[in-house]
């Protein structure tokens, strides 16, 4: 079965430190990969996506993600965390060949950035 795993329910980091939110997937072929962020009582906001090309993708608010095909991973990173980055982060995968927008989401990782 196709799935997306975010192995950490919660990540704690001090402000100014680098952060990593992990994501691995089990999807055949070369899927499209996405990261979204969700603030309380809000919908999902798009951060970045990997379609093809360079394995390091840069996105909004200083976030970037590294695609690793052999490890089927797409980890989200930021060099210096801000308190305002505290939110719920979702990794999502869109399998190729589905002919539409059937995107599979992970369960989410809550990021806490301490001042």
């Amino acid at each position, binding site marked *: 079965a196709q799935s*997306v795993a975010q192995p950490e329910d919660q990540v704690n980091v001090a402000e100014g430190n680098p952060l990593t939110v992990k994501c691995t997937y089990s999807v055949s072929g070369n899927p*499209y990969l*996405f990261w*979204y962020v969700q603030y309380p*009582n*809000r*919908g*999902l*906001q*798009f951060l970045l*996506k990997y*379609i093809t090309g360079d394995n390091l993708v840069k996105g909004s608010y200083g976030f970037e993600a590294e695609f690793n095909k052999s490890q089927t991973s797409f980890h989200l990173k930021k060099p210096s965390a801000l308190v305002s980055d505290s939110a719920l982060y*979702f990794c*999502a995968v*869109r*399998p*190729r*060949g*589905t*002919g*539409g*927008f*059937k*995107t*599979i*989401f*992970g*369960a*989410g990782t809550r990021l806490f950035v301490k001042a």
Partner: protein
Amino acid sequence: DAGVTQSPTHLIKTRGQQVTLRCSPISGHKSVSWYQQVLGQGPQFIFQYYEKEERGRGNFPDRFSARQFPNYSSELNVNALLLGDSALYLCASSAHRGLAGGPSTDTQYFGPGTRLTVL
């Protein structure tokens, strides 16, 4: 520019009732998708509509239905509500469907959601 809008914001229903949720996509976007997000989980794909036709359906029972109107807005209907239908229902819009029938690389933009509580 206005983003994706959804109404109502919150809704409380009882078991067995029917509910209609509404979504207006970003201007110029022709595709609308619906997702269900149960507390503590990631969003689950329900439907995708493009140019007023259903293009994709997730693993949801027939109690769930949707439609898209000529102005590309959309409604999600859920009949015979169950307690387990309590969730945040998200609508997402994007400009295009996939090229040559393949999955789109377009970004989906999400609305704020409708919080449905079934008592």
